[in-house]
């Protein structure tokens, strides 16, 4: 029996909670507001009891794969385990009940956490200053690019372009456009890394920044990073780092030491805050000293043992969201860093790399490794050899669901045909890794010997393969009474 929508449950006038008492029954809203301000048609909201609410959403939750129930090696997303202590402590009412406009002296605890988290992130990344304001990685990218823009404008040179490798996350070019820059894509070299000669050709005084990820989106470390930084700086451009792949580097190598001027972190990836079905995340942006004056306001500063929100920053780019950022996500990252310490963070990165390399080494012969370089925390294989059996990477992904695994990221990076991007993270046991490897190898066999099985997969999920073309063609983006159901 498929789960109904909440609108298809309940009955007229059924109530789900006891709403607060109306102590002012004698007041009449028609006397408080002019009639033409008042809504005439009430919104159609559910009319369900509390138990219907709880059962409905509990049942829906059970239709999800998630880190708590399934191995979720979604490359580039770093789906590692989220320690429960983070959930517990971030829901303390001393944090959840803080209003952003309370006087500073009432919120010293929260400010202390933000200030210290900022310091730790600067140390981990090798930077001098930071803003915690952005809500997500891509929001951090936009912020970072706006900082770069402000820096160049302050120096009297506007500059118009940002260079991005063709392997970059899709958000990188989109953020460039949003920041008013033209995104110049350069092709990756044969080894999957940045082609230094192509980079040199594109670099001129119009380039504001080179925007890259290291390790890159193939999971490969850009060994020429110092050269790339030198070339970038030689034309006065800045080097932007997409921090989505920081999980490979903690305690091992610091982007700031590689020559990056700006880097965003994804707290929900590297620092173990849950991904919430697609957010909230948090995308702090760390910078070298030269870019500090342009950080969004307010910046948290410490004076005489007290923390303050400093708005007096005349060169600031302004704000990228209201208030200060996604506080509970910051708090979870703070807790994680304090529990791991230097040694723990290093071990996390080492084991993330160890696990990725293990999986890739075990599956690369049955699939195909398009760039045979040692993978860092994630690796990209290709399913192109199964095309002769009529099997696409999508079919492989769907079949993995039957084996009880969330599939890797597919069709990314775009430069790899039929790509599967696998990121196991450090929090998985060897038993899980081995089970996944077995499933991948079984599927490779099935693709050759029983391709129909894959084409019709998944077989065991609550719904079978969904028609995405129909969804885009016959747009149904909301439930409509009497028409919503089947």
């Amino acid at each position, binding site marked *: 029996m498929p789960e109904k929508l909440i609108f298809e449950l309940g009955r007229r006038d059924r109530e789900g909670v006891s709403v607060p008492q109306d102590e002012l029954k004698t007041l009449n*809203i028609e006397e408080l507001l002019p009639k033409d301000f008042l809504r005439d048609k009430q919104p159609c909201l559910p009319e369900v009891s509390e138990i219907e609410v*709880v059962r409905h*959403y*509990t049942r829906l939750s059970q239709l999800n794969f998630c880190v708590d129930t399934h191995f979720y090696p979604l490359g580039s997303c770093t789906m590692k385990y989220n320690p429960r202590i983070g959930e517990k402590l971030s829901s*303390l009412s001393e944090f959840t009940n803080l209003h952003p406009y309370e006087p500073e002296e009432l919120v010293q605890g929260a400010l202390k956490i933000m200030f210290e988290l900022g310091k730790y992130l600067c140390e981990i990344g090798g930077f001098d200053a930071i803003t915690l304001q952005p809500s997500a990685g891509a929001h951090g990218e936009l912020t970072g690019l706006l900082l770069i823009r402000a820096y160049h404008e302050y120096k009297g040179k506007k500059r118009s372009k940002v260079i991005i490798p063709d392997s970059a996350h899709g958000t990188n070019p989109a953020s460039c456009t949003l920041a008013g820059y033209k995104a110049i894509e350069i092709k990756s070299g044969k080894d999957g890394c940045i082609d230094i000669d192509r980079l040199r050709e594109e670099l001129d005084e119009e380039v504001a920044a080179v925007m890259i990820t290291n390790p890159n989106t193939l999971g490969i470390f850009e060994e020429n990073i110092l050269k790339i930084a030198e070339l970038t700086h030689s034309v006065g451009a800045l080097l932007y780092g997409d921090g989505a792949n920081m999980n490979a580097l903690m305690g091992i190598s610091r982007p700031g030491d590689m020559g990056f001027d700006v880097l965003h972190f994804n707290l929900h990836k590297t620092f173990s805050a849950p991904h919430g*079905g697609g957010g909230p995340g948090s995308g702090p942006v760390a910078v070298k000293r030269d870019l500090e004056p342009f950080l969004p306001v307010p910046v948290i500063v410490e004076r005489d043992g007290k923390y303050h929100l400093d708005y007096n920053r005349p060169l600031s780019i302004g704000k990228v969201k209201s208030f200060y950022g996604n506080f509970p996500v910051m708090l979870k990252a703070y807790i994680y860093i304090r529990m791991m310490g230097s040694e723990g963070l290093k071990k996390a990165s080492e084991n993330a790399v160890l696990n990725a390399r293990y999986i890739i080494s075990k599956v690369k012969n049955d699939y195909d490794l398009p760039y045979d370089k040692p993978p860092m925390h994630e690796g990209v294989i290709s399913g192109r050899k199964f095309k002769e059996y009529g099997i696409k990477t999508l079919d492989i992904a769907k079949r993995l669901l039957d084996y009880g695994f969330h599939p890797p990221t597919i069709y990314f990076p775009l430069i790899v045909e039929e790509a599967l991007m696998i990121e196991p993270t450090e929090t998985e046991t060897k038993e899980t890794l081995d089970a996944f490897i077995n499933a991948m190898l079984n599927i490779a066999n099935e693709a050759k010997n029983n391709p129909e099985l894959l084409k019709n997969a998944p077989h065991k999920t609550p719904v079978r393969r969904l028609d995405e073309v129909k969804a885009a063609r016959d747009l149904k983006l909301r439930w409509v009474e009497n028409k919503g159901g089947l």
Partner: protein
Amino acid sequence: MPFIPHTQEDEREILDSLGIKNKEELFSHIPQEIRLNRPLHLPQPLSEVEIEKEIQKIASVNKGVNGYISFLGGGSYNHWIPSTVESILSRGEIFSPYTPYQPEASQGTLTILFEFQTMMCELFEMEVSNASVYDGASALAEACLMALRITKKEEVILSSAIHPEYRTVVKTYLQSAGFRVKETPFKKNGKTDLETLERNISNDTAAFAIQNPNFFGVIEDLEGLKKLRESKDILLISCIVEPISLGVLKPPGSYKSDIAVGEGKSFGIPLNFGGPYLGIFTSKMEYVRNMPGRIVGETIDIEGKRGFVLTLSTREQHIRRAKATSNICTNHNMCAIAATIYLASVGKNGFKKISEINLKKAHFLARELRKRGFELLFDSPFYNEFAIKLRSPERALNTGLERGFIAGLPLKRFYPELEEGLLINVTEVHDVLSLEKFADFLEEVKDA
């Protein structure tokens, strides 16, 4: 180390299988000069019991709305949250998946987001909603960018009675992309000056944006806005920062808004020191392909069963890259889920009741203050927030802290010309007795 399960033996087996001696070798291709050859300067690691003590110690320094009766609003409103919300959100199946890229394994998240979109369309009386953006401020900025894409024009006009932080965010987003942002003033009664606005509209103007109720809590001239929208060829963007108001007040669709955005914090999301909150984004159907962010659509599976998927992804950054309608990837789904459970729980009748209680309690306090000789800063209809005139709002705030009140937000912080204004927000969490006490307190400090 509890979060990293490998034993030494596990590690040994994997290293052997890879044919390498130790973990250092995994990184041998990273140039020596950029290898970190020292530990990170971080505090010593703590066990779970130690971090718990440490965080509780830090937490105890905070003084939130627990310890005080707070009248702070200004874009973040303190509302009661039904227990169902936290209970369901605390399930791992809700908080520990990611963006539903594989719909067959994500029907839970997708179904809830489809319900969310439906609820937002209902509340705002708009035709289409996305599955959330970061917060109200970024929603407004994205709305302005969307209007500029639709009209292919160059400027937007903002009412200066929009939340000051929202206006700053809009400017940060738009000006770097080469667009112009103009502001139009508010009148003595706190409402946006529509006559001046009309004169400011040029051929370059893509859209005009208002907030309702606006930053001062004042309800805008909805009839006037509607007429203006009908007579001028520019888009109307409405921003609803306190959506609990929609149980009482006319929704954006009814006054011809083309794009209506909002802050969904009031729907089951804690104050959280300012975030994460919930950006609501709705529009007319004809603009759906210009909309930013993720959208969930209904479809069927190969057996004909109803199911839900992310759709219209050709607008998005992973397909269109530099030409995408926005760069949003991780959005605020969990907050959208909270809002959905909140609205399902309070339901049709409850929502209306809560909305009315907010209105009544705020008006009750305003009445009590008027009885005590106070003047409202703006003589206009308001919903659950209003400004009063005081000789020194700062002093009221400081004295209030000694007496257990956070008296409100001095308007001077954002509007230097309104130095006598104290913005006061009342919601269903305030009881009548505490409102009376607060009125007495303000009367005491009135002339100080």
